[in-house]
């Protein structure tokens, strides 16, 4: 294997390794989605296509619930897009690390909350030539695991959840653990520490209040506001310049 091939394969391998923790969170949730979709009257093939084409967890659950309850189709479309609107900040944030390849916009189909969080941490650490390989590998594993989990849930979800109830309870902890590892290096200053802690607390409280879909954008906006407030205060006290 040439050194170029070796570097390429190591970027792909690194992407696969980085995406592995996602499986613990994705597969149990996708199994639940497949099971609920079939129980709501969708076929296994339809459930898999919803997962493959929309590929956005919360909005998929809403999609099948609204369709099953007979909601107007335009409202289903609006609500789906509203829930997924948070994705608009992901692409711009990783744009500085991407080449001008015309494939990147297409590859954004694989950009989920978790893939974005991973990419935002990992892409700056990789050489430019390795970034697309890393991203395709990580995003493909996540996407395929979501599709496979949905198929499994649609075909045998009831049996799986009855036989291994603890699996669905324990494995999803991989997602908060992954976010925690991605966040840990960002506690670099008093300003960032307060911003992060306040954002986490706001999201937690909003979720406990039942505002599952609004929690992420609202808490993030709270965090950004606090960041600027702290910056103004630190500037006024002369502790930072600029």
């Amino acid at each position, binding site marked *: 294997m040439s050194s170029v091939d070796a570097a390429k394969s190591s970027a792909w391998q690194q992407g696969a390794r980085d995406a592995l923790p996602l499986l*613990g969170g994705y597969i149990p949730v996708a199994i639940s989605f497949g099971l609920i979709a079939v129980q709501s009257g969708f076929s296994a093939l*339809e459930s898999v296509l919803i997962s493959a084409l929309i590929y956005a967890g919360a909005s998929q659950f809403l999609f099948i619930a609204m369709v099953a309850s007979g909601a107007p189709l335009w409202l289903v479309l609006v609500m789906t897009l509203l829930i997924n609107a948070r994705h608009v900040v992901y692409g*711009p*944030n*990783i744009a500085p690390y991407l080449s001008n390849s015309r494939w990147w916009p297409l590859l954004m189909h694989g950009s989920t909350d978790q893939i974005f969080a991973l990419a935002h941490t990992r892409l700056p650490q990789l050489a430019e030539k390795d970034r697309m390989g890393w991203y395709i590998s990580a995003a493909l594993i996540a996407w395929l695991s979501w599709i496979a989990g949905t198929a499994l849930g649609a075909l045998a979800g009831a049996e799986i959840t009855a036989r291994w109830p603890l699996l669905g*309870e324990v494995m999803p902890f991989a997602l908060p653990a992954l976010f925690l590892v991605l966040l840990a290096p960002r506690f670099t200053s008093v300003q960032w520490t307060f911003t992060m802690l306040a954002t986490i607390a706001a999201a937690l409280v909003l979720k406990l209040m039942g505002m599952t879909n609004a929690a992420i954008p*609202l808490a993030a906006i709270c965090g950004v506001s606090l960041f600027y407030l702290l910056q103004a205060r630190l500037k006024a006290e002369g502790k930072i310049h600029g």
Partner: protein
Amino acid sequence: MDKSLWLLLLACAVGTFLLRALPLIWMRRHLLRRSDNNGAATMPVWLTVLAPTMIAAMFGVSLVPAQPAVSSWLATLLGGLCTVLVWRRTRSLGWPVCAGVAVYGVVVVLLKMIG
């Protein structure tokens, strides 16, 4: 699914894809314009602050267990603590997550055996 539902599925899929792809295209053009004008190819500051806060918000939301109970909160706390401790030692991505999930699972099982 009838024809209207297939169209709805396609509209949701295309709309979600555009939400993901169009802002990237817009930012790439913005960065190119800045570098063509000999300016620094930088992103707006608010956007660079928004990204880590979005990740922090995702973390906050994901902390809430599917069935909130004292046992799940305790497992979350201990699993999170173990994740951080292993991260401080290894500075890696996979091992802290594995260790955190393992501790979370052990605590859940132990609490179920006790209670």
